[in-house]
């Protein structure tokens, strides 16, 4: 148990230390700060989960950011000035659209046999273009209940609704899948597609399934983007890049077949908290970008060094 979840537990430890450090730097940092943190990391956390699933299945999805932009503008433009009830339909519809986007990505990869990275790079253009067609400039609106679902706290001032929402959604979708045959196949095609094929796993179908899940979680990310900002923005943010960073930091091997979705979520919170700390310390925000890049590269370097040492004793 500890061995298997060692990386994630280590990350949680780092997160706790960081929270203490934050408290020391800024003694006023309290429940409100934690709430703000939870709300601000919500879209990126979903994006990281989406990316993690693609990477576990030995893929990579560079179109996560564009899918988020597309689902965000669709939901924002449909929900503007409409009833609260209609928004429920919009949310369900947008989640379905997310599945379709992901399934299109996966099917194209399987059918064309072009490497994942090229196909999703191309789809990055396509989905971003579609987002611009839906909404030329930032705009639209969000239903009130959706906004209140992510803001504020529940039970206790220290438990932000946003964090609970994230955990409930991810756990409700991911844990059953992971325990099912499909989840096993997902990890199987990630660690060795040939062995998986020979033991009767349909590699093509599993891959499409993995990308569909990636699309679904990208849609969640896009919806929370609309919910937390109140509008839809057609230009993709830096989410694709950061999601890859979070996945790597979160202990998912880029070679596939290893890791889970909770490590990346913790990694997202750590990255965001580091940024907050640097703001408290009056570090230039641009240097914070530099630090993010260095952390990303540094962690991957250490990770691959450890792997190299394991392989060549």
């Amino acid at each position, binding site marked *: 148990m500890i061995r298997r979840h060692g990386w994630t537990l280590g990350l949680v430890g780092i997160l706790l230390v960081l929270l203490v450090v934050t408290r020391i730097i800024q003694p006023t940092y309290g429940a409100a700060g934690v709430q703000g943190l939870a709300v601000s990391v919500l879209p990126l956390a979903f994006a990281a989960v989406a990316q993690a699933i693609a990477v576990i299945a030995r893929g990579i999805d560079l179109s996560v950011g564009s899918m988020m932009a597309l689902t965000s503008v669709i939901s924002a433009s449909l929900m503007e000035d409409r009833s609260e009830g209609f928004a429920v339909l919009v949310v369900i519809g947008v989640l379905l659209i997310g599945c379709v986007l992901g399934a299109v990505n996966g099917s194209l990869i399987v059918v*064309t046999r072009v490497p994942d*990275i090229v196909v999703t790079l*191309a*789809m990055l253009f396509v989905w971003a273009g579609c987002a611009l067609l839906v909404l030329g400039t930032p705009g639209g609106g969000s239903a009130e209940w959706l906004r209140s679902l992510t803001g504020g706290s529940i039970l206790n001032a220290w438990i932000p609704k946003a964090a609970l929402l994230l955990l409930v959604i991810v756990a409700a979708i991911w844990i059953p899948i992971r325990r099912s045959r499909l989840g096993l196949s997902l990890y199987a095609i990630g660690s060795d597609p040939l062995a998986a094929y020979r033991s009767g796993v349909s590699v093509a179908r599993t891959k499409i399934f993995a990308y569909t899940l990636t699309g679904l979680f990208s849609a969640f990310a896009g919806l929370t983007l609309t919910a937390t900002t109140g509008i839809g923005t057609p230009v993709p943010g830096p989410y694709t890049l950061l999601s*890859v*960073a979070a996945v790597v930091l979160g202990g998912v091997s880029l070679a596939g077949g290893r890791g889970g979705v909770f490590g990346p979520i913790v990694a997202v919170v750590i990255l965001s908290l580091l940024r907050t700390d640097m703001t408290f310390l009056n570090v230039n925000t*641009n240097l914070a970008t530099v630090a993010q890049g*260095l952390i*990303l590269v540094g962690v991957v370097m250490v990770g*691959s060094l450890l792997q190299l040492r394991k392989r060549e004793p």
Partner: protein
Amino acid sequence: MTDTATTTDSRPRWLTTTGLRALFRERPIIPLIGLLAVLVVVSELIRPGIVNLNWGGVMVRAAVPLAILAGCQTMTMLTGGIDLSVGAVASMSGFVVATLVGGPGLATGILVALAVAAIVGLISGIGVGIFRVHPLIMTLGMSLVVLGFANVWQIQMVQTGSGVPDQFRDLGAGIFLGFVPRSLLLFLPLAILIILGLNRTGYGRLLYAIGDNPIASRLSGARSWQVLIVLYVISAVLAGVAGFLYSGLTNVASVTLADTAVLPSVAAAVIGGTSIMGGRGGYGGTMIGALILTVISSILSSLGYPEAVRQILFGALIIFVAAAYTRVTET
């Protein structure tokens, strides 16, 4: 199933499916030139009279910086890598020169910009070559670092920034003999150097070897880490040079100027027949790929289509061409 066609058919070899496939596989540049010709005809049909030497000059002028960035992608992709930091490096170098030209002068500006680019490439190369970080991650991380530092520099230099130097404007946007873009004076020697370097030197051969089979190339004595470090330095310096042309062409010096060119540069290399898995491709196709993308953009903008449609078409084109290559090279 196509084997029988070649033996029984009396048509010329290149007319048969197998022949066409072989042509596409061995000389991808020929169908690419065909595609380019079709696009030129389409431009002419949409706006009769538009296609002339001036138009050609404008197309080439717009394609040159993209072709240089696509050269970075071609070389890194040959080894199975990719360089996503070219946009940040190109923007940075154009910006650095624009801020330095007023004070220390143009030559110093160029030297500083290229030196910074070389350092960025060196770090990327060390990460990829020695630490075996995935090139995608390494270069993405480096582009964050470069962008961050460029922003810091921008804040420092905001008072002294003096704009794009005249020489760059001349080089990037100037035209001589009526229609020949001046940037060709820089680009042609560069292109010849890249093509000769890839085809005629041991170093070029090593790039193909590493991309084709890293283990075999290591067993036969290639020190891939040295090759990769040099490669990423070359790639970053080329990106820096492209940055000069971009700032000259657009007369803008900004830290995000060339960011939008990163994905088209990958697209140009992929369309030009370079495999992202490494080991196959060349620069000739890439140059045609850059021209094809430029002509498509111009067609779309002359039709009045918004940026969005251009992006969608670019994406679709990349998948289509990549799928076509995968089909012909697998059989």
